[in-house]
């Protein structure tokens, strides 16, 4: 080892001042250009579309603004919920890209509406999206934020949906999508159709005593209050035992607590046709003495209808109502 302070000028000695100067100058510049929230989290909320005719303006709840100059002709959607709404609102030739799950018969309710020519997009990966040259992108707050920011930075108008907790949210999302696409009439027709079907269920179950319902996904998640699943149970004439306890949101709760709530009906979402989650639940002794198992009322229903955040999900309410009040649907 050489003794200290006895060495000639070295790479480290000349690199240090250069890096110091570059770092200091850049820091000064960066301090003034990186704004609050550039790395921060997105605020959930429903964006607003301003303007009756094109050009229209998107007002994002996080503060962003963007202009849609004319009726979009190349629309890309980055998640299933938006895929379902987009394909219900516009002609197939205007759909340039959908999420890669749009073709999954287990997860997507719009498999038959997705055009073959549309690209299948993985997450919010900006490269393939930019290559599609879209004139409108539907995203959600759960899509990769930095990916979405690259799109907005490239001047592509992005509608970022943020609320999926109630049918009020679903209706607001469909209206915003319709306004952004210039498909207001079809959006209203879709909402009208959905409300009709919900009204029809409400008529069938009126004045019937709501059974105590537990929604239990095989991985242990359940849905408390302020979730769309909770509202679907309520509209199907059931009482969600979890939200009745005052528990909010999608939650991972202990089986002990869930058993103690004494559910009369247990609904398990089924993600694959081969696997019967109801049988798996019945095989676990912990559930044996619940009223639901005793009464033979454990039902597996297709997950996509229960979890859909588009108007398609109304079929989930219908299927729920049939298992909660079978006597009301015998005629």
């Amino acid at each position: 080892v050489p003794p200290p302070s006895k060495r000639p000028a070295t790479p480290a000695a000349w690199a240090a001042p250069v890096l110091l100067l570059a770092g200091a100058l850049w820091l000064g510049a960066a301090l003034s250009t990186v704004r609050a929230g550039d790395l921060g989290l997105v605020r959930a909320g429903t964006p607003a579309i301003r303007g009756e005719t094109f050009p229209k303006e998107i007002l994002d709840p996080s503060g962003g603004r963007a202009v849609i100059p004319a009726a979009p002709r190349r629309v890309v959607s980055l998640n299933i919920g938006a895929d379902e709404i987009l394909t219900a609102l516009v002609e197939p030739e205007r759909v340039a890209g959908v999420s890669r799950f749009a073709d999954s018969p287990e997860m997507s309710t719009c498999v038959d509406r997705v055009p073959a020519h549309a690209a299948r997009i993985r997450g919010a990966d900006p490269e393939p999206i930019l290559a599609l040259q879209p004139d409108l992108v539907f995203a959600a707050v759960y899509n990769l934020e930095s990916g979405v920011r690259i799109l907005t930075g490239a001047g592509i108008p992005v509608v970022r949906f943020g609320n999926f907790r109630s049918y009020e949210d679903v209706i607001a999302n469909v209206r915003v999508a319709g306004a952004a696409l210039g498909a207001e009439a079809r959006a209203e027709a879709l909402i009208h159709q959905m409300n009709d079907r919900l009204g029809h269920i409400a008529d069938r179950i009126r004045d019937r005593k709501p059974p105590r319902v537990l929604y239990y996904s095989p991985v242990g998640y359940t849905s408390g209050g302020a979730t769309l699943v909770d509202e679907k149970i309520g509209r199907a004439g059931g009482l969600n035992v979890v939200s009745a306890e005052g528990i909010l949101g999608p939650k991972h709760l202990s089986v002990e607590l869930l058993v103690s709530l004494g559910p009369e009906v247990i609904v398990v979402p089924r993600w694959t046709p081969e696997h019967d989650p109801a049988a798996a639940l019945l095989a676990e002794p912990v559930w044996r003495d619940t009223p639901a198992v005793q009464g033979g009322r454990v039902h597996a229903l297709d997950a996509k209808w229960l979890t859909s955040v588009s108007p398609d999900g109304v079929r989930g309410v219908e299927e729920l109502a049939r298992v909660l009040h079978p006597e009301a649907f015998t005629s």
Partner: protein
Amino acid sequence: MRRLRAPTALGLGLVVLVGALAYGLSRGAVRIPAGDLLASLVGLEGPTAWQRTLVLDVRLPRVVAGAFVGGGLALSGAALQGLFRNPLADPGVIGVSSGASLGAVLAMYLGLGALSSWSIPALSIACAALTAFVVYAAASRRGRIPVGTLLLAGIAVGSFASALTSFVLSVALDEYEQGRQTFRWLMGGLEARNWHEVALVGPPTLLGAAIVLTSFRELDALILGETEASAVGVDVHRVRRRVVLATSLVIGSAVAVSGVIGFVGLVIPHMLRLVVGPVHAVLLPASLIYGGAFLVTADALARTLLAPEEIRLGVVTALIGAPFFLYLLLRRRGEYSVE
């Protein structure tokens, strides 16, 4: 192995770095012809607007961020190994990275990111420094830091920080969206990084690297031990404070932008010691350059090996780094040290 002279090693390093950057720029989900790529970079006519955006605002910030993160981590590893006089000192192994991610997760959970984007690297840097000082104080015994003690102290402090991170996450998951975004960040990687992130990681890395580089003589002297270094006139406490703070600046900002990426700080300096020797005047700048090139290449592989799926960057660095590190250990069994 024959040792390279400093100018050769560093010049070669710059060539390798430029090659890695070019390789990173050329790979992606979409094929862009080399001509259009070059024209986009120098601002010539030819490529379409979306191709230009893709090159300048998607790929370029990603490879530049990768170069800063990789270079910063490798430099910090080299400096910490010298300071701790211990070949296992790596930001990941001694718990500093865990401390840094705790800081970043705290900043996200408390919503500070919405007030100022700088809060995330700032808190990350502060927690990295705190962890490093605690580990140093816990592991130091009369001027020596035994491998075992360092590892145990690093595991203890790192586990404590990780447990706190998990706790903050479990609380944050009640706020579903916030929890999800924090969780995704914690997985690490350089997916969809843009110029804001580059601006957050670049200046602190350059400043921290500059401060570390000025300490090259003291780090050389410290290889002998703290007592011996004091005897030749090194103010050990000052050097320690300076190097720990400077590396925390570098590691904290790297973690704030990319999450925890392991093995870069361990493998690159060890590899370079074989090639350029242990003298910090050359080792430190070489780590900065080769570390950057390594991470840019690893990231390019991460997004192309299983395209269109992306492998997590930390997985790739560990898959390359761990076997290589084992190879080095076996080859120089018994005689392995930082000297």
